[in-house]
C-alpha cells in the first residue's frame, strides 16, 4: 500500500482536515493573540476595580427598581416595537455608578447610570444600559480598552498615572465633549432629576418598513435641584429609596430622529438640537429592592436585546458592549451559583 500515490492521497486527507481546522482556529482568535476579546476586557475591569465575586465587574454599586412604561402610541410612526403601541408594559431596572467599587461615592459619580428591561409582551424585550452623559467618552472599543488599562492602579502608588491619562485624552480629541460635560455639568440632587441617554444610535423600522436612525433620552419629570454641598457617599441611593417609598417617580421617553448625514456610528458626537423629537411615553418607577436580592442582580442589561422594530446601528461600541456584558454575566452567574450552593 505504501506507494508514492498512497502518500499523496494521505497528504490530500491531511490538507482537507487542516483547512477547516485552520478556519476554526482563525475564528476563535487562536491565530491572532492580539485580538481584543471580551475576556480581556473583563479581566481589565477586574484589574481596575477589584474582583467582586458574584457581582458586576463594572457598575458594581447598584439598586434594583421596578415599575412600568406607559406608551402613548406616538412612537409607532417610527418603530413597530410593541412598547410603542398605546399601553402599559412592566419594567425592571437598575440604577448604578460606573466603576468596580461596590461602595463608590455617589457625590463624585459622573456619569450616573440606569439599566432597564421593558417587557413588551409576547416575548418582545427591550433591554438598555444608559448613562446620564449626553455622549460616550470614546468612539472605539480598542480605545476604551486602552483607557481602562491606563486607569489600572499602579501598585507603587495605589493610583493610576494621571499624566499618562492626560496624554491619552490629548491624543483622543473625540473625548472632548464627554470630558467637558463631566467637568462642567451641574449635578442634580437625585437620580429622579437625572436624564438617561441611549448614547448609541439604533435603527428603528415602522410597520411600513421605513427605516430611521434614533437615539433616545429618559427626561426626568422631577424638577432639577443642585447636588447639595454636603452630599454623602450614598446620597443618591438613599434618596431614590426614600422617594419611591413616598410615591412613583417618572421620566418621559423622547426619541431623537437622525437626519441623513448625522453621525450614527459614533457615540462621542451629539446630534444637533433641532432634530425631530418624539415623546413616546412615560417611565414610571414605583419601588426599589436591594440588589443583593432583587431581580436586577442576575439580569444582563445587554443593549442589543431589542424588540422587533428596533435593531443595532453599525456603531462598533454596541457589539463590544454586548460581548463584554455577556462574558461578565457568565462569570458572575457561575459565582452566584456557587454562593447559592453554600
Amino acid at each position, binding site marked *: *500500500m505504501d506507494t508514492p500515490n*498512497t502518500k499523496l*492521497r*494521505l497528504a*490530500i*486527507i491531511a490538507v*482537507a*482536515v487542516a483547512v*477547516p*481546522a485552520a*478556519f*476554526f482556529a482563525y*475564528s*476563535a*482568535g487562536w491565530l491572532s493573540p492580539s*485580538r*481584543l*476579546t*471580551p*475576556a480581556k*476586557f473583563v479581566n481589565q475591569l477586574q484589574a481596575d476595580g477589584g474582583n467582586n465575586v458574584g457581582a458586576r465587574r463594572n457598575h458594581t454599586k447598584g439598586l434594583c427598581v421596578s415599575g412600568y412604561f406607559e406608551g402613548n402610541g406616538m412612537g409607532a410612526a417610527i418603530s413597530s416595537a410593541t412598547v410603542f403601541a398605546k399601553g402599559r408594559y412592566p419594567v425592571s431596572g437598575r440604577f448604578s455608578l460606573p466603576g468596580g467599587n461596590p461602595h463608590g461615592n455617589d457625590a463624585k459619580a459622573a456619569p450616573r447610570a440606569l439599566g432597564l428591561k421593558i417587557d413588551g409582551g*409576547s*416575548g*418582545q*424585550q427591550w433591554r438598555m444600559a444608559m448613562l446620564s452623559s449626553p455622549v460616550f467618552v470614546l468612539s472605539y*472599543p480598542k480605545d476604551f480598552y486602552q483607557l481602562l488599562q491606563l486607569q489600572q492602579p499602579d501598585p507603587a502608588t495605589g493610583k493610576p498615572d494621571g499624566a499618562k491619562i492626560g496624554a491619552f485624552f490629548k491624543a483622543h480629541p473625540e473625548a472632548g465633549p464627554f470630558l467637558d460635560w463631566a467637568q462642567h455639568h451641574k449635578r442634580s440632587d437625585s437620580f429622579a432629576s437625572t436624564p438617561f441617554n441611549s448614547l448609541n444610535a439604533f435603527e428603528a423600522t415602522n410597520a411600513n418598513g421605513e427605516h430611521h436612525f434614533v437615539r433616545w433620552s429618559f427626561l426626568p419629570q422631577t424638577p432639577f435641584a443642585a447636588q447639595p454641598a454636603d452630599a454623602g457617599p450614598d446620597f443618591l441611593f438613599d434618596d431614590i429609596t426614600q422617594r419611591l417609598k413616598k410615591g412613583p417617580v417618572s421620566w418621559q421617553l423622547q426619541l431623537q430622529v437622525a437626519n441623513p448625514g448625522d453621525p450614527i456610528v459614533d457615540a462621542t458626537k451629539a446630534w444637533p438640537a433641532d432634530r425631530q423629537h418624539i415623546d413616546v411615553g412615560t417611565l414610571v418607577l414605583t419601588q426599589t429592592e436591594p440588589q443583593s436580592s432583587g431581580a436586577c442582580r*442576575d*439580569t*444582563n442589561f445587554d443593549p*442589543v*436585546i431589542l424588540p*422587533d422594530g428596533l435593531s*443595532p446601528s453599525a456603531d*462598533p461600541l*454596541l*457589539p*463590544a458592549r*454586548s*460581548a*463584554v456584558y*455577556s*462574558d461578565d*454575566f*457568565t462569570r458572575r*452567574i*457561575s459565582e*452566584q*451559583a*456557587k454562593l*447559592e*450552593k453554600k
Partner: protein
Amino acid sequence: MKDQFHIVIRLLHWLMALAIFTMLFVGAGMVSSVANRDWLYDLHKPLGITILVLAILRLVVRLSSRTPPLPSNMPLFMQLVAKLSHVLLYGLMLALPMIGWLMLSAGGYPVTLGGGIELPALVAKSNSLYAVLRPLHTLLAYSLLLLVLGHMAAALFHGLIRRDGVLRSITFGK
C-alpha cells in the same frame, strides 16, 4: 441504490455539514471578539434551531430506512469506532442546540430567532443550571469539532485509501 443511504439522509448530510461548520465558526467568533457579535449571534440562534429540526428529521429517516452495511472486510475495531462516532455525531447534533436553548432560558435571555419568532423558555431562570450549561455548550462544541474533523478524515480514508465504497454511500455519484 442498495449500498447508499436514503436520498433524504444524503441530502441532509451535506446540508447539515455546511450548517454545522458555519455554526462552529460563528460560535467561536462570537465569544472571542468584541466586533460583529450582534449579527453573528443573530445567525447563531436560528441556525442552531434549524440544525435541531433537521437532526430530528434525519434521525427519524435514519431509523426507518435501510442503513448500508459496512464492508465485511473492515476490522471489527474500525466498525465499532465507525458506529460509535455516528451515535456521538447524532447525539451532539441534537444536544448542542437543545443545551443552547436551555442555557438561554436558564440565563433569563429571550430566545428570539428574528422575524418576530420567539421560542418559549424551556426552564425557569436558574443560576445553577446556567452555570453548568454555559461551559457544557462550549465543551460539547469543541467535541463536535474534533468529531467532525475525525469523521472527515475517516471518510476520506475510506474513499481514497481503502476505496471500499463507504464514502460513496453518502455521495450522489454511482
